Structures are given as structure tokens and as C-alpha cells.
């Protein structure tokens, strides 16, 4: 079944809220992306995790895998910084999915 960013947004949970983190108030953003198989979720994780965030300070991003679901958690000091990072990530995620559509499915291991 081909993946597309449109069909996945139905299943994607996004939440942005301010929470207390010690003495600082940081913004948090959660993203959950289901994949058709654990293998494809793993491929996405390994393609999207190696590069460092271009902006050194003011933002953290953590990727995690749970079965077929890739989850991403951001914390940021400012909404502007958060927007740039999330937007960038969604572009890259989209690219991974298009690549999987065009050149997948993964070969059997």
C-alpha cells in the first residue's frame, strides 16, 4: 500500500504545549508516524537520525521507535525555532516516504 503524507496525517498525533521543565518553561511537540511494517519504520529512523540539528542551542529533538511507529519529541525555547525544526523534519520525512514508494519495498534480509 503506497504511503503518502496525506494519508498519514489522519493518524499523526501532534501536540504542542508549554510544560514546566525544572525552572524553565519549554515548548514541547510530539509526532507519531505509523508505518506499514517495523522494517520500514526502522529504515525511516536510520535515515532521519544521523544528522545533527543545524541550530545548536534552543532546541532538542529525540527520535524513538516502538513497533511500527516512529515517534519524535521536540523541546524548544521559542515557537519560531520549533516551527523551523518541525517543518524541516516533515519535509525530510516526506522525502523518505516518497523514496520508499518509488524504490521499495525493502528487500528480504
Amino acid at each position, binding site marked *: 500500500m503506497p504511503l503518502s503524507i496525506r494519508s498519514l496525517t489522519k493518524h499523526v498525533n501532534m501536540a504542542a504545549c508549554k510544560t514546566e521543565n525544572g525552572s524553565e518553561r519549554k515548548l514541547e511537540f510530539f509526532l507519531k508516524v505509523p508505518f506499514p511494517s517495523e522494517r520500514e519504520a526502522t*529504515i*525511516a529512523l*536510520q*535515515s*532521519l*537520525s*544521523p*544528522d*545533527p540539528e*543545524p541550530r545548536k542551542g534552543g532546541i532538542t529533538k529525540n527520535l524513538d521507535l516502538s513497533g511500527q511507529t516512529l515517534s519524535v519529541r521536540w523541546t524548544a525555547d521559542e515557537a519560531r525555532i520549533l516551527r523551523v525544526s518541525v517543518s*524541516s523534519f516533515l*519535509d*525530510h520525512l516526506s*522525502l*523518505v516516504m*516518497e*523514496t*520508499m514508494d*518509488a*524504490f*521499495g*519495498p*525493502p*528487500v528480504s*534480509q
Partner: protein
Amino acid sequence: MPVVIGFEGSANKIGVGIIRDGEVLSNPRRTYITPPGQGFLPGETAKHHRGVILTVLQEALDEAGLKAADIDCVAYTKGPGMGAPLVTVAIVARTVAQLWGKPLLGVNHCIGHIEMGRLITNAQNPTVLYVSGGNTQVIAYSERRYRIFGETIDIAVGNCLDRLARVIKISNDPSPGYNIEQMAKKGNKYIELPYTVKGMDVSFSGILSYIEETLFAMLVEITERAMAHCGSQEVLIVGGVGCNLRLQEMMGVMCKERGARLFATDERFCIDNGVMIAQAGWEMFRSGHVTELSDSWITQRYRTDEVEVTWRD
């Protein structure tokens, strides 16, 4: 007979190339061209590459007449270059490497140029002048490293020419440097301007009214100095600015005076392209290099002499 596919997109060119034992099977490329007076910015460049990379990848496979199963290794540019475009290309390379179950190889962009130049010209052990929009280095191979003998202490010579083109609003199609060269051919007035060579190095910033003669003469001087140090009888010019025939001519004059040979490649291979990454990847793959996914991060700074060149004696 390993077959290596290479992905390159560190500046405004996006290319995917396939090589098999020194034979170029395909090397399609697209260039992001901005309107006159405008340079290319990382975000827009990355967006351009995202839009075409999968098409170019399919083209590379189709032109080579190959399927994914025929590829033995996926090479991509680890750096140096612009961050956003580098990430875009690395992401696709990592994804297809995993989809196809093939090993991944992160390649130094400058070494890609060098290895392609060596393959195409068959120069044995040349002093290398690497000149492009992003890089200006004089390089000689010694004991498993491409040693940087001299370089720009500020901006690359191609960057200087690109900025000149921007100021006087020369078209960026097919490249600003090409259009400067065509205009310079029709010129006949030489204006003496400051000539900045500092030992092995050069400086280009702040003096953006330089014309070709002065810039290129400076490069010829530092190349000659490196040749004298190494006792070298060969010069290889690589990088986009290497397409410039006047540079080749001036270097040729110096080489003739020294009884040395000059090597250069044409625009297919001087200008950034995918198969040069595949070729460097091929050399690296054969000598046992592989890049683990967790180590496959891209980097905007990546010096030519950071890589251990295990494939040469």
C-alpha cells in the same frame, strides 16, 4: 567488478552517477539556477534537490540499464558543502541503501573530484589544483593523505567570480563563471589590480573587481610552488572553475616551461556530478571502507586531508 552509485548535491547541482570498474554507466545532473543578481541559498537549494532527486535517481538507473539489485554500494557526499542540500541527498542515499540492502559510503566531495580527474585523465601522481565555487586548494598526494599544500585564506576563486557576476547582473545560466569567461574572451584591456599570494596561499575577498587574468595567475603561481616542493611533473585541474579554458591555457604555459604535463576534464566531470562520488566510493569500497548508518551524518566542514587514502600507495 563492483558497481557503485554516487549521490552528489552539496551545492546547486544535484547529480546521481553509476560506475563499474572505471566505466561511467550514467551521470545525469540538474542545476538550480537563480535569476541574475541572485545567489543560491541553502533552503531553496535543498527544496530544488528534493523536487528532482528521485527522478534523477531513476534516470541514472535507466540510462545504465541496471536494477537496484545490480548495485553493490551506495556512495553519497558526506561533506563539505551547504548543510540543507547535503542532508536532503544523504537522506535519500541512506534510504535506498537500506531498501536495497547495500552498504553505504560517505565520500569527501573534494576527493570525489580528484578521483574522477585521475580516472578520466589517467594522470599518475599529479599536483592537483581544485578550484570551484566552494573550494580553492592545491593538493598533493603523500603517504595515504591528500595533503593541502596551499589554499584560499578567505573565499574560493569561484565564489569571487560568482559574486562579480552577481554585482554586474550576468546570467547564471548555465553558470555565472561560464558567462564571465565568454565576456572575457571579447575583452582586450588588462587592468592591473592587487595580486595577493601569501607563500603557498591566496586571498580573494574584498577585491571582487578582479578579472580572470589576475585570479588565474595567482593560482598558477601557487600550483607551480607546490610542484617544485613535490618534484611533480603533472598537474590536474578539477572543480567547476577548471572548465575555464583560459585557466587551462595559463596553466599549460607554466607546465610547458617546466616540461610538465597538464590534465583537465570537460564540463561533465569538472562540474559537480554524481559519478565522481561513485568513483571515489568505488576506490574506497574496494579497499574495505564502509559507513555505518549512525556515522553517516553530513558535515559542512570536511577537509580533504582528513581522509585516510588507503587505496593509493
